């Protein structure tokens, strides 16, 4: 993992001291609310419905056990004993007191963490494939480039006041697990015909009230040119992006309005003018960063562990969990394990301090002390020996986090919604809980297969509903919560925005409605066809018919 150098350390400490001073001046009245608000937002502090909220950056979703333990401690001491992992691979605490936040930031600095640039119109925390560096299907580890972008974008003076927030995601594998097409810039590691490794750059993706899929601005960018090229994109956006209307201020709107060809022409012109060598990272610095991500000291193991196979044969519950929650590792004999934070009836992405401590201990014991956060709001132990999986599973069970549902219908993404969020128009967590209970039966879940349900409590789409196979958006209709269902969204390399399939329904009607959609799939699917594949083949019509019939039944 990356470790702070002396400059990083000094800078973060200085920021904590500044914020402590700003809070003090706010409390003694020297700063007005209008003056203080941008300062607190610069440090990840929001005001939600019931309390303040602190959003902590987890760069590209990578955590050490020491960091996770510190988060657990903060949750225990300053919050209500839990935290919420988000679709941006961050952690949010829902109940901190303003007076405690400087102290909390100090504790974060002790473990090389902070909340800088987790809010506001700047380049936000860079997100990445949760299996970075370990996935068997990977072309190259995207973490060094994510770290490089983090360093370049942190306090970049030119990009500190952009028209709007700016989100960058990176993946090193052709199978996109980082939803790069839903970001302002998406970076995919690719190999060209000559066998050289470089980047494909997407721009103009985003969700919110105007969802857009990112478009290719450069098919192949040599690795060395990355920062200069990003700088060119940001410059074009910074100059042209609209500051007069925040709903039109994201880069996706600019790309949409002038077209990707014109946008590309402007970026390439700017790129040609830029003095690449002064912007692009020094190769020595790139090598220094890359060295932090060298593989850990793996043991030489056979590709398949006999002990593991025997345990699976003897224990079907374990076999089910292992099949669903592990991912092929590039190192023979190892697996990447996803720990579901989607216990049936629990709030998606919430983890208690006890669970965080348990995961930190298990990471020390079984995974070189490393943990990842996924954009689907789960945790990952990236480096587990197959032979250790059974013991790990048992210990996860004891901590209440052994749900075998990763990627299945109960692995639901949900934003905090109206249970916490001041912008929400409806609740989202209880919808997720009700759906998980409805589909709790594991055999049925496995029969249904991969299916992503994603729920947002307002049009801002923090819960990624636009790119859910089934998306659920909570709105207000005539003074009550109402839910709009979309179908056919996809967050992967086949990115697509879901389409609305009928009128809004009440919270109580949601589980039946979703069950109807699933029934259409089960009745119509061909051998081996997943839900989203069936939706693509069949089109929306049969699903709409089932959905609308239900809406009509309810009305009758």
């Amino acid at each position, binding site marked *: 993992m990356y470790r702070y150098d002396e400059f990083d350390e000094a800078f973060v400490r200085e920021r904590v001291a500044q914020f402590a001073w700003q809070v003090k001046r*706010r409390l*003694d009245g020297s700063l007005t609310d209008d003056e203080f608000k941008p300062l607190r937002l610069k440090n990840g502090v929001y*005001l939600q419905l*019931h309390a303040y909220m602190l959003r902590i950056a987890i760069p590209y979703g990578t955590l050490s056990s020491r960091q996770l333990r510190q988060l657990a401690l903060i949750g225990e001491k300053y919050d209500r004993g839990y935290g919420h992992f988000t679709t941006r691979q961050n952690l949010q605490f829902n109940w901190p007191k303003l007076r405690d936040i400087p102290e909390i930031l100090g504790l974060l600095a002790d473990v090389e963490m902070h909340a800088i640039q987790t809010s506001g119109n700047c380049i936000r925390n860079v997100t990445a494939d949760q299996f970075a560096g370990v996935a068997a299907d990977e072309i190259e580890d995207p973490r060094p480039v994510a770290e490089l972008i983090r360093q370049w974008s942190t306090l970049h003076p030119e990009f500190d006041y952009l028209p709007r927030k700016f989100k960058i995601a990176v993946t090193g594998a052709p199978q996109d697990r980082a939803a790069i097409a839903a970001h302002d810039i998406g970076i995919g590691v690719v190999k060209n015909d000559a066998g050289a490794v470089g980047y494909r750059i997407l721009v103009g993706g985003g969700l919110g009230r105007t969802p857009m899929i990112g478009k290719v601005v450069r098919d192949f960018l040599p690795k060395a040119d990355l920062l200069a090229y990003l700088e060119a994109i940001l410059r074009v956006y910074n100059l042209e992006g609209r500051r007069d209307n925040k709903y039109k201020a994201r880069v996706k709107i600019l790309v949409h309005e002038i077209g990707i060809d014109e946008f590309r022409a402007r970026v390439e012109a700017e790129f040609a003018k830029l003095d690449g060598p002064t912007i692009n990272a020094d190769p020595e610095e790139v090598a220094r960063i890359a060295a932090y991500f060298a593989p850990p000291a793996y043991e030489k193991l056979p590709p398949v562990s006999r002990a593991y196979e025997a345990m699976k044969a003897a224990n079907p519950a374990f076999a089910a969990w292992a099949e669903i929650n592990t991912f092929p590792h590039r190192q023979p004999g190892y697996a990447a394990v996803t720990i579901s934070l989607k216990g049936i009836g629990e*709030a998606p992405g919430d983890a208690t301090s006890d669970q965080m401590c348990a995961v930190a201990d298990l990471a020390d014991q079984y995974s070189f002390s490393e943990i990842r956060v996924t954009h689907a709001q789960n945790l990952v132990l990236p480096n587990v020996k197959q032979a250790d999986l059974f013991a790990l599973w048992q210990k996860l069970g004891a901590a209440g986090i052994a749900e075998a549902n990763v990627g299945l219908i109960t692995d639901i993404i949900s934003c905090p919604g*109206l249970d916490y969020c*001041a912008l929400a128009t409806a609740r989202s*967590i209880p919808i997720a809980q009700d759906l998980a209970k409805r589909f709790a039966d594991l055999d049925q879940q496995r029969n249904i297969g991969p299916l992503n349900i994603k729920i947002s409590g307002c049009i801002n789409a923090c819960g990624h509903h636009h790119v859910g196979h089934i998306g659920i958006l909570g709105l207000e209709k005539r*003074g*009550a919560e109402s839910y709009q269902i979309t179908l056919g969204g996809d967050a992967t390399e086949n990115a697509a925005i879901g389409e609305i399939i009928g009128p809004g329904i009440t919270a109580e009607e949601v589980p039946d409605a979703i069950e109807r959609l699933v029934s259409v799939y089960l009745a119509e699917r061909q051998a081996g066809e997943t839900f989203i594949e069936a939706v693509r083949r069949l089109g929306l019509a049969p699903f709409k018919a089932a959905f609308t019939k239900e809406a009509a039944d309810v009305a009758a």
Partner: protein
Amino acid sequence: MSAQKKTPLPAILLANALLDGDVVFRTASGWSRDPREALVAEDEATANRLLDEARAAFARNEVVDADLVDITRDEAGVPVPNHFRERFKVKGPSHRPDLGKQAEFGVR
């Protein structure tokens, strides 16, 4: 502070305390964390007084996001906001009955 839109009566004044963010209610004599103690404005004059107090308290750095909220009294006489958003703000997260004012003061 949204003093512009006209809030239907009866109404209460709620806000977030600056120091700890907690939801607080204007009472006859100050701020309380207990919704049952909220002063209910039945008439225009009282509502305007509440708004004046909200502005003053904001200026004194006691509270932020102060807002008049229209309510209906329940059987026990406790003011319950008419809009579901403020009902959640008063109670706490609906999926966590162990947290927020629903836990502390038993408000439903």
